[in-house]
C-alpha cells in the first residue's frame, strides 16, 4: 500500500511541478515590477495580466494540439509556416478577392477555407508519417520549408496590408483581434483538449501509442488514424492562430511565424510533456505557456534587452526539463 501511496504522491508532485515554476515567475514578476502612480504594482494590473494572456494566445492554442502530437510520440515543426500561410491566405481572400457577396459571407468563407487548408496540411503530414513511415521530425521539417516557400510564392513575398477602407478585411481584423474572443477560444479549446485526453477512448489510445507503439499494435489500436488526427488538429490550430495573428497585426505577412514552432514546443516541454511520448497533460502545457509569457513580460517591463530574454528562456527550458527528469527517474531508480 505504501508503494501505491508513494506512486500517487509522486504523480501529484509531477503534475504540480509546472505550477511551482509558474508561481516562481509570478513572484519574480511582483518583486521586479516597476511601480505605477501611487505605488501600484504594474505587473499585477489587470491590463498587464490579460496582455500576457493575449500575447501568448497564438502559441497557447497551437501548444494544445502540439501536446496531443507529442503524447502520441510525434512532433510538428511546420506550425510556424502554417501560421504564416494561414495569415497570408486570409490576406489574399479578404483583400485581393472581391466577390459579390456581403462582407460577412466573405469573412466566413475565408475562415472556413483557412481552417480547412491548415487541417489539410496536417492531414498530409500525418498521412505521409503513418503511411510512408517517415520520421515525424523529417516530414514536418520538410513541410516547414515547403509551406514557407508556398506562402512566399503565393504572395509574391509581399505583405498584404488589410487597410481600413475595405469592409471585409477591416471587420475581420476587429473580430479576430478582440481580446475576449481570443482568450475564450483558447480556454474552450484547452478544456476540450483536456477532456479528449483524459476522458475519451481516443485520448487513451494516444497515450498508449506514444508509450509503446508495438504493444499498441498488438492490442489492435487504430494507430495510423489516431496519429494522423493529431497532425490534423495541429494544422487546424496553427491555422486558427494564423487568423488571429493576421487580425492582430492587421496584415498577412509571409515572413511571420518564424521559429514559432520552437516556442510552442518549449511551452509543451516546460509543461511536463515527455518528448519521448506517452506522458503529458493539457494543464501542464497551459502552465508552460504562461510561464514563458510571464517571463517575457517581466523582462520587458524591466526593459531588458530582447536578446537577454532569449537566454532567460533557454535557461527556463533546461531547468524545467531537468526537474522533470529527476522526478521521473526517482521512483524507478
Amino acid at each position, binding site marked *: 500500500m505504501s508503494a501505491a501511496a508513494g506512486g500517487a504522491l509522486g504523480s501529484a508532485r509531477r503534475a504540480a511541478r509546472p505550477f511551482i515554476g509558474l508561481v516562481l515567475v509570478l513572484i519574480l514578476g511582483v518583486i521586479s515590477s516597476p511601480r505605477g502612480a501611487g505605488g501600484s504594482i504594474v505587473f499585477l494590473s489587470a491590463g498587464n495580466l490579460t496582455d500576457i494572456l493575449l500575447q501568448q494566445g497564438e502559441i497557447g492554442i497551437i501548444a494544445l494540439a502540439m501536446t496531443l502530437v507529442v503524447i502520441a510520440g510525434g512532433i510538428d515543426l511546420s506550425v510556424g509556416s502554417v501560421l504564416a500561410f494561414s495569415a497570408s491566405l486570409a490576406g489574399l481572400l479578404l483583400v485581393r478577392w472581391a466577390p459579390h457577396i456581403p462582407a460577412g459571407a466573405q469573412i466566413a468563407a475565408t475562415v472556413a477555407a483557412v481552417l480547412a487548408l491548415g487541417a489539410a496540411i496536417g492531414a498530409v503530414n500525418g498521412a505521409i508519417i503513418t503511411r510512408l513511415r517517415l520520421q515525424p521530425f523529417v516530414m514536418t521539417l520538410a513541410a516547414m520549408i515547403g509551406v514557407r516557400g508556398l506562402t512566399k510564392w503565393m504572395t509574391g513575398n509581399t505583405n498584404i496590408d488589410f487597410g481600413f477602407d475595405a469592409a471585409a478585411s477591416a471587420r475581420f481584423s476587429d473580430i479576430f483581434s478582440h481580446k475576449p474572443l481570443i482568450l475564450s477560444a483558447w480556454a474552450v479549446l484547452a478544456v476540450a483538449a483536456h477532456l479528449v485526453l483524459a*476522458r475519451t477512448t481516443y485520448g487513451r489510445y494516444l497515450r498508449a501509442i506514444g508509450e509503446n507503439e*508495438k504493444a499498441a499494435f498488438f492490442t489492435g489500436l487504430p494507430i495510423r488514424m489516431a496519429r494522423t488526427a493529431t497532425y490534423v488538429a495541429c494544422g487546424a490550430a496553427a491555422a486558427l492562430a494564423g487568423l488571429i495573428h493576421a487580425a492582430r497585426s492587421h496584415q498577412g505577412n509571409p515572413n511571420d511565424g518564424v521559429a514559432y514552432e520552437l516556442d510552442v514546443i518549449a511551452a509543451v516541454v516546460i509543461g511536463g510533456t515527455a518528448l519521448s511520448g506517452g506522458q503529458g497533460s493539457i494543464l501542464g502545457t497551459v502552465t508552460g505557456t504562461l510561464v514563458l509569457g510571464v517571463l517575457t513580460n517581466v523582462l520587458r517591463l524591466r526593459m531588458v534587452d530582447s536578446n537577454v530574454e532569449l537566454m532567460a528562456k533557454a535557461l527556463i527550458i533546461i531547468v524545467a526539463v531537468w526537474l522533470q527528469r529527476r522526478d521521473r527517474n526517482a521512483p524507478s531508480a
Partner: protein
Amino acid sequence: MIALSSPDILGSPPALACTQLAKHYGGVRALAGVDWELQPGEVHALCGENGAGKSTLARICAGITRPDSGEIRVDGIPASWSGSDEARRQGIGIILQELDLFAHLTVAENIALGNPALEESRWVSFEKLADAVAPHLRDAGIPVDPGTLLGELSISQWQLVAIAKVLSLDARVIFMDEPTSALTEDAVERLFTVIASLKARGVAIAYVSHKMSEIFRICDRISVMRDGEMVSTMRRQDTSIAEVIQQMVGRPVGAREATPPEDPKISVLGVWKLSTRKLRGVSFDLADGEILGVAGLVGSGRTELARALFGMTRVTSGRVTLADGDYRPRSVSDAMRRRLVLVPEDRRRDGLFMRMSVRENTSLAALRRYARMGWIDGAREAEEAREQLDETHTTYGDAGQPVDALSGGNQQKVLLSKWLLTRPKVCFLDDPTRGIDVGAKEDIYRLIAALAEEGVGIVWVSSELPELLANSHRIMVLHEGALRGILDSADATQEEVMRLATGGKGDGP
C-alpha cells in the same frame, strides 16, 4: 556431474576449463555451479532445452556475461576478464546467434571491428585491410571480395563472415551458438568442412545446437545441460540420440491435470494447410474448450503460427475457419472482431504499457465497451477491470499505480486480464509462463483450465515440456515450420515430443 576426460588427450591441459560457474538473473537461476572443459582440437556439443543454460555458459566463457562465482582457466592458467575484448585477446571467440555484424559496413570492416591487430592504426588503409582479411575469408569458405558491403550478402554468407571474423582473431577456442539455424544445406556442408580444418589445427570448438543429426555427425563429445546444471558429458561413440534427448528432458513428467472436454462439439478454429514464408502446410483443428499445447524449439514456427493467425505475415496458401465461417485475418483488430486474441510472448515489449496504470492496461483492449461516443464511463471501467483482475488472482496495491511496479507474475496476469476482458472465443497464448515464479505459473495453469471449461478454445506455446504435457489436452509439435505430429497428451512422453521437435523420426520409441 560426470566429468570425463578422454584418455587420448590426457596430459595437455584443457584449452578451456570451468569450475563451479554460477549465474543468476534476478531470482532466476541460469547456471548452478557448472564444471566443464574443452580439449584442444575437439568439437564439443552443448545440448539442452531452451533455457537450460547453454547460451549463458557460452556467453560467460566469451566474457560477454560476468559470472556470479566460479573460475575459468585457459590452458590451465586462471583467467578473469571484464569484457569480451579481453577474452578475445586470450583467443576465445564466439559466434552469437544474433550475429554482431553491420550491414552498412564492408566485409573487411566488419572483420576488423573489435580486432586489436587490424584496428591498430587509426587510419585504416583499405588495401592493407583487404589483404589482411582475405586469407581468413578463404579459410572460412567464403572467398568474396573484402570490399563487398555485408548487406549485399545472404544470411548464410553472414554466418561464414562471422566465422572468418573469429578466425582473424587467431582464436584457439570458438563457441558457435546455433550456427546452422540460418544456413542452407550446402552452406552447412561448407561449415562442416571449415570446422574439420579448424579441428585439425588444434582449435577447440564448442557447438551449441538443437540438431541431433548434426551433433552426432561432427562432435567428439556431447555435454547435456538441464536447469542450469551440467547433467553429463559423454563421448559420441558411447551414447545415442535417444539417451541425449532423455537426459535433456530429465525430470519425471508431472501429474496430468488436463481433463479432456466432455465431448468435443464445435470446431472453434480450423487450420488447413496453412503456409507462409516460414510455415509449411500446417493443419490442425481446435474444439471449443480444448487446450492445444504447441511444442517446438526456437525457430520451429511457433511464433510464426501466431503471426499468420493474426494477419501479421502474408499467408501464401491454406485456409482458416472459425466457428462462424471463413477467416482471412488482415490485422489484429480483424482478429479481435472475430473474438480471437493473441497474448504475445514478450510482455514488456509487445504487451504492456509500463508507465500506464494497472487499470488502464487491463481495460485498453476492451475500452470501446465502456465508452459511449468515445466517452469513457470511468466507474464502469474501474469496476470491470477490478472484477477481471480478481478473477485472474492478480495482486496489486492500487489500480492507479503504474503496471511497472508489479512483479513479473502479476504483470503477466494483468496482460491476461486485458485480453480476457474482451471475452474471446479462441486464445493464443505465446509462452505465458516465461520468466515468472512457480506460484504465478500455477495460477496461470488454473486460469487456462478454467477458461477451457467455459468453452474457450486455447492454443498455447511453452518451452517447458513438462508443463505443456501436464496442462494440455493435445500437443502439437512443430519443427522447421512443419507440423511433425499431434499427440494426445495422455499418452505422449517428453522423449517422444523432444524427438519430433528436434527433427528425429516420429515412429514411436
